[in-house]
C-alpha cells in the first residue's frame, strides 16, 4: 500500500507477483518500461508508473505489444535497462520483433520481458503456453514460483541478459501474478550516471561485429545459438534450481513455476516426503542438462508437474533419450501418460490425485458423511453467469444491434472482439457476437465477409471493437476496409476506458500511464481521415441507435463507422459523476410471468440491478446493485419500471 519504490531494504511487504516483478525491475535499475494491458499482467506497468517520477523511469502504455518491445529494445540499444510486459497473446504479437532483435542482438543494457500465461483461460480468450515461443525464438527462459522469487528472478535476469546479449523471458501464470505473498525488499539502485546514447556500430568488413542490424542472416544465426549455450552454462549453477528430498528417491518430481508449491504441498499432504524428491527448475530453457541428468539417474520414476504444455517434459525426455542406455529403465509420468492434462489450471489437489495413482496411495481429505452432505447441499447453489455491470452501455448497444439485425431481416451478424463487450457472445450481450478471435480480429474478419458479394453473400456485416482495442489493433483493418471497399459497418464502443483489464489509459483518454495529461488521438477525425463515413450515437438512445444501425447496414459501400459513445458505468462511478435516475418497479403494473411480458427485463435484458421476486411474482430493483442508468424503463412493455430524475 506504500510506494513500490520505498527505500526499506530488508522490510517485508505483501506484494502480488505483478508488483514483485515491478519491484524487481526497479531494484535492477530499469529506465524504461513499456506494455499493453493484458490480464493477468496489467498491474505491472501502473505499479512502475507510480514510482516513475521518483525513480526516473519512462513508463508507457504502448499501443500494442510489438511497439512495446521495440520501445524497450531502443532503451537497451541506448544503454538503459528496460522491461516489457505482456500476457500470452502479447508474445504472439511481439514475436516478429523479438525474432529479429535476436539476430541483431540487444544493446549493452539488459532487456527482460515478463510474460504471464493464463492456464484455464480465466481472464483470456484462449489458453496458450508461451514458453514454446521463447524456445522457438531462441531466448533464455526463467519461471518464477512465488512473488519473492519473481522479484529476485527479474533482477537476476538483467545480469543474464547482459552476459549473453539476449532478451531474457521471465514467465509467470495467473496464479503467480495475482497471488500476494511476503516479499523481502532489496536495495534500490544507485543513481544512473551515464547518459543514454545510441552507438551506431557498423563494420563493413566484419558484419558480425555490427550491431542492431543483421545480414547475411545465417552468419548471425550461428552466434545466436552460441549465446544460448552460454546461457545454459550459467543456468547449470543457478540457485533458482533446487532439489529437495532423499538422495535416491523412489519418484522424482520435476516441476517449475507455480506448480512448485502444488508439488511440495501434495507431497506433504500425502506424507511421502521420504519417498519423493522434488527438482524445482527456475531456468527452463535452455535446460540445464548436466544438472537434470544427474537427478535423472538417481531414480526410477519421473513425474513432470507443470502448467499446460509438456514443455519441460519434452526437453527432459529428449535429454533422457540422449543419455540412453543409462536412462532406459526410467518410467515417465505427466501429460503424455495422462496423469495431468495439458489444458486447464493445475492444483495441489490434482497433483495429489496423480500421485495417488502413480504410487497407489490413499487419501481422504474429509469425513465421508460430510462429503455426502456437502454434495447434497451444493445442489441448492445456482449457477452465477458472468454479466456486464449494471448500467453498462454495451448492454444498450447490443440490445439495439439485436433488434436492428432482426428488423433488417437478412440474417446479419456481428464479428466480436476482446474486451468487456466480448460477453456479447453469450446471454449478457444477447448472443450477438458470432465470431471471437484475437484483438482486432472482429474488424479483420468482417473485412473478409464484406467482400464475398460475388459469391452471392448478402448478409449485412457488423464488427464491434472497444476504444482501446481500436487504437491497438483495428486501424489496419479499417484502412483495409476502406481501401478494399469491403462492405461492413464497424462499431466502436467508446466508453472512455480500457475497462476489462482495469481502466488503464489509452491514446483516446488524454492521460499517460503516469497520470500526466496526454494529447488525445481523435477517434472520429482519424476514421474520417482514412475515408470512412462516421456517425456518432449514444447507445442509451435506443431509438436513434437502432435507426442508425439499420441505415448503415443497408448501405452498399466500403467500410463505415458508428461510434457508440457513452462512458463506462464504473468510470462514471470512479469520477463521482452523480447517477442520473432512481428506479423502482410498480408491482401493480408489472406483468411478470404472464403473456405480454414473460419476464422480459430479468430474463432477457438481465441487468444485475434487476431481480425477480419469486414470492410476489414481480420484478424488482436491487437497490444494492442498481446504478440508475434508466435503460430498463425503456424496455418494459407496460411502463412498470419507473425512472425518476435525481434532483
Amino acid at each position, binding site marked *: 500500500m506504500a510506494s513500490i519504490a520505498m527505500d526499506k531494504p530488508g522490510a517485508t511487504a505483501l506484494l502480488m507477483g505483478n508488483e514483485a516483478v515491478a519491484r524487481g525491475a526497479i531494484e535492477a535499475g530499469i529506465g524504461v518500461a513499456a506494455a499493453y494491458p493484458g490480464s493477468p499482467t496489467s498491474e505491472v506497468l501502473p505499479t512502475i508508473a507510480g514510482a516513475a517520477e521518483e525513480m526516473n523511469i519512462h513508463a508507457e502504455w504502448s499501443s500494442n505489444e510489438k511497439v512495446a518491445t521495440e520501445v524497450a529494445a531502443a532503451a537497451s540499444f541506448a544503454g538503459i535497462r528496460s522491461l516489457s510486459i505482456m500476457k500470452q497473446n502479447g508474445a504472439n504479437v511481439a514475436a516478429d520483433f523479438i525474432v529479429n532483435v535476436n539476430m541483431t542482438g540487444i544493446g549493452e543494457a539488459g532487456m527482460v520481458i515478463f510474460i504471464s500465461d493464463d492456464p484455464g483461460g480465466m481472464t483470456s480468450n484462449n489458453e496458450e503456453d508461451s514458453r514454446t515461443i521463447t524456445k522457438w525464438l531462441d531466448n533464455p527462459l526463467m519461471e518464477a514460483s512465488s512473488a519473492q522469487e519473481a522479484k529476485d528472478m527479474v533482477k537476476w535476469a538483467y545480469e543474464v541478459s547482459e552476459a549473453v546479449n539476449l532478451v531474457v523471458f521471465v514467465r509467470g501464470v495467473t496464479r503467480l501474478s495475482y497471488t500476494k505473498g511476503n516479499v523481502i525488499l532489496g536495495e534500490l539502485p544507485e543513481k544512473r550516471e551515464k547518459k543514454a546514447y545510441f552507438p551506431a556500430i557498423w563494420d563493413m568488413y566484419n558484419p558480425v561485429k555490427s550491431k542492431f542490424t543483421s545480414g547475411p542472416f545465417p552468419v548471425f544465426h550461428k552466434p545466436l545459438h552460441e549465446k544460448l549455450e552460454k546461457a545454459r552454462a550459467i543456468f547449470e549453477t543457478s540457485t533458482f534450481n533446487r532439489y529437495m528430498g532423499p538422495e535416491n528417491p523412489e519418484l522424482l518430481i520435476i516441476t517449475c513455476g507455480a506448480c512448485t508449491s502444488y508439488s511440495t504441498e501434495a507431497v506433504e499432504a500425502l506424507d511421502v516426503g521420504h519417498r519423493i524428491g522434488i527438482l524445482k527448475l527456475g531456468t527452463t530453457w535452455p535446460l540445464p542438462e548436466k544438472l537434470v541428468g544427474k537427478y535423472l539417474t538417481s531414480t526410477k520414476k519421473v513425474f513432470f508437474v507443470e502448467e499446460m504444455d509438456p514443455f519441460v517434459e519434452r526437453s527432459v525426455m529428449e535429454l533422457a533419450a540422449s543419455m540412453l542406455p543409462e536412462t532406459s529403465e526410467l518410467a515417465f509420468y505427466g501429460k503424455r501418460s495422462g496423469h495431468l492434462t495439458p489444458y486447464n489450471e493445475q492444483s495441489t489437489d490434482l497433483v495429489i490425485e496423480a500421485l495417488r495413482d502413480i504410487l497407489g496411495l490413499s487419501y481422504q481429505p474429509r469425513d465421508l458423511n460430510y462429503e455426502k452432505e456437502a454434495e447434497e447441499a451444493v445442489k441448492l447453489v445456482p449457477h452465477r453467469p458472468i454479466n456486464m455491470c449494471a448500467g453498462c452501455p454495451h448492454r444498450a448497444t447490443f440490445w439495439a444491434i*439485436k*433488434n436492428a439485425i*432482426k*428488423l433488417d*431481416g437478412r440474417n446479419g451478424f456481428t464479428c466480436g472482439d476482446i474486451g468487456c463487450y466480448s460477453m456479447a457472445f453469450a446471454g449478457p450481450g*444477447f448472443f450477438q457476437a458470432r465470431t471471437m478471435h484475437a484483438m482486432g480480429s472482429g474488424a479483420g474478419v468482417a473485412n473478409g465477409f464484406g467482400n464475398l458479394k460475388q459469391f452471392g453473400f448478402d448478409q449485412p456485416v457488423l464488427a464491434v471493437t472497444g476504444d482501446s482495442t481500436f487504437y491497438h489493433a483495428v486501424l489496419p483493418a479499417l484502412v483495409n476496409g476502406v481501401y478494399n471497399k469491403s462492405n461492413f459497418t464497424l462499431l466502436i464502443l467508446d466508453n472512455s476506458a480500457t475497462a476489462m483489464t482495469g481502466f488503464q489509459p489509452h491514446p483516446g483518454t488524454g492521460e499517460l500511464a503516469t497520470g500526466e495529461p496526454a494529447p488525445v488521438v481523435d477517434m472520429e477525425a482519424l476514421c474520417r481521415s482514412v475515408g470512412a463515413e462516421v456517425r456518432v450515437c449514444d447507445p442509451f438512445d435506443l431509438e436513434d441507435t437502432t435507426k442508425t444501425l439499420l441505415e448503415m447496414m443497408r448501405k452498399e459501400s466500403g467500410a463505415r463507422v458508428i461510434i457508440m459513445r457513452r462512458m463506462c458505468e464504473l468510470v462514471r462511478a470512479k469520477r463521482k459523476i452523480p447517477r442520473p435516475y432512481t428506479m423502482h418497479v410498480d408491482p401493480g*403494473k408489472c*406483468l411478470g410471468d*404472464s*403473456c*405480454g*411480458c*414473460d419476464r*422480459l427485463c430479468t430474463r*432477457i435484458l438481465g441487468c444485475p440491478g434487476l431481480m425477480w421476486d419469486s414470492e410476489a411474482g414481480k420484478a424488482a430493483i436491487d437497490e444494492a446493485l442498481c446504478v440508475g442508468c434508466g435503460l430498463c424503463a425503456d*424496455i418494459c*412493455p*407496460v*411502463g412498470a419500471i419507473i425512472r425518476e430524475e435525481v434532483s
Partner: protein
Amino acid sequence: MSSNGRGSRKLIEDVIGAGLCTGCGACVTGCPYMVAYEGRIVVLDKCTVEDGDCYKHCPRTQTDMNAVSEKVLGVPYGAEEVGHALKIHMARSTDDQIKQKAQDGGTVTTLLALALDEGIIDAVVCTRMDEDKVPHGYLARSRDELLQCAGSSYEASFALEAYRKIPHESTDKLAVVGLGCETEALAKMKTDLPINSVNPDHVQLTVGLFCGWALRSNTFHPFLRGLCDPSQAVKFDIPHTPHYTFDVYTSSETKSLSLDEIRPYINPACQYCWDMTAEFSDISVGSAGSKFPGWNTVIIRTGTGAKLVELAEKKGIMETQPLPEWRLSHLKTVALNRKRTAFKNITEKTGDKNDLLYVGGLSEGVIDKLRED
C-alpha cells in the same frame, strides 16, 4: 375457446412460417417480443409463454366462426355471401373537405368523425400512410387526425399494432377500422379476452373495409419507388371492372399500371382469405363500383351500426340511396367466388378436403353451400 398450450413458437410455425400471415397486427398488440416492420412480423426475442394471446387472436389459427359470430353479431354464422346484414345501401359524405380526401364516398371518415364528436368514442384504431406512403397502425383522436388517415394504401398495415399505444388501464372508448382479417382478429379478442392488453370490450364500434387482396409493403414499395417519388403520390386506386388497372395519382399526373404488374406484390396469404366484406363488423364499407363514382356500398350488420348511420343521415352529414338489385347481386357473386377460391386454395394446401385450416365451427350445411362448385 382456449388454444391448448400455443404461444409464439407455434404461431411462427403454423402461420407466419406457413405463408398465412395477412398482416393484421393482432399478434403484436400485447406482445413486446414481436413487432410489425416493413410488412413483416419480426421476432425480436423468444417468448416462453405456452398459451399466448398472439396465437389465440390470430385470424389464421383455428377460429370457431359460430362462437365469434354469436359474440359480435348476436347470430350464428350463416351461409350469406356477404355475411350477416340488417341493411345494405349506398352512402356518401356531404362534407366537401372529407370528400376531397376520400377514396370513394368518405363514409368511414364521416361516421367516425361523428362518433368522436358525439363522444360515442374517444379514439380510433386505424391506418395512416407516412410521407413515403407506407401505411402504419395509427390512433386518431380528432377529425383532423382522421382526415390524415383517409384514402386506401391497398396494403396490409398491421393496423391492430396501434392498439399497443393504449395503456392497460385505459378507459378510452374505441373504434377500430380494419380489413376482414383485422376485424376477425378483433372479434376473436372479444370472444376470448386477452390476458394483459387493453380490454376489447372497450371497442364500441368496428368498421370493416371490403378487401380482395392486399399488397405487401416490403416488396411493393421498392417497386413503387422505381415508378415515382412516393412522397408525391396523393392517391392510389383500383377502379372496378371493366377497368384492370392500378392507378397512382400524383399532383402532376396519373400513372396507370396493369394489374398484372402489381400481382407479384400481393401477399400470398390473401389467397386463403374467405372474408371479402369484413363480416365481423358493425358496418362494412366498400366502393360502389365504377357506375357510381364517389359512392360507397354500406352493409349495416348490427344495431350499433344502424344507429350511427341514422344519426349521420339525421345530421345531414351523410346522404344515402338504395343499392340497385343488379349491383347487390354482383357483389354477392364476387363475395361467394372469393369464399370458394379460398376454400379451394386451403384444401389444396392442407391436402385434405376436411382440413380447412383456420375455418372452424361451421355446420356441414354452411360449409357445403360455401364450397359448392
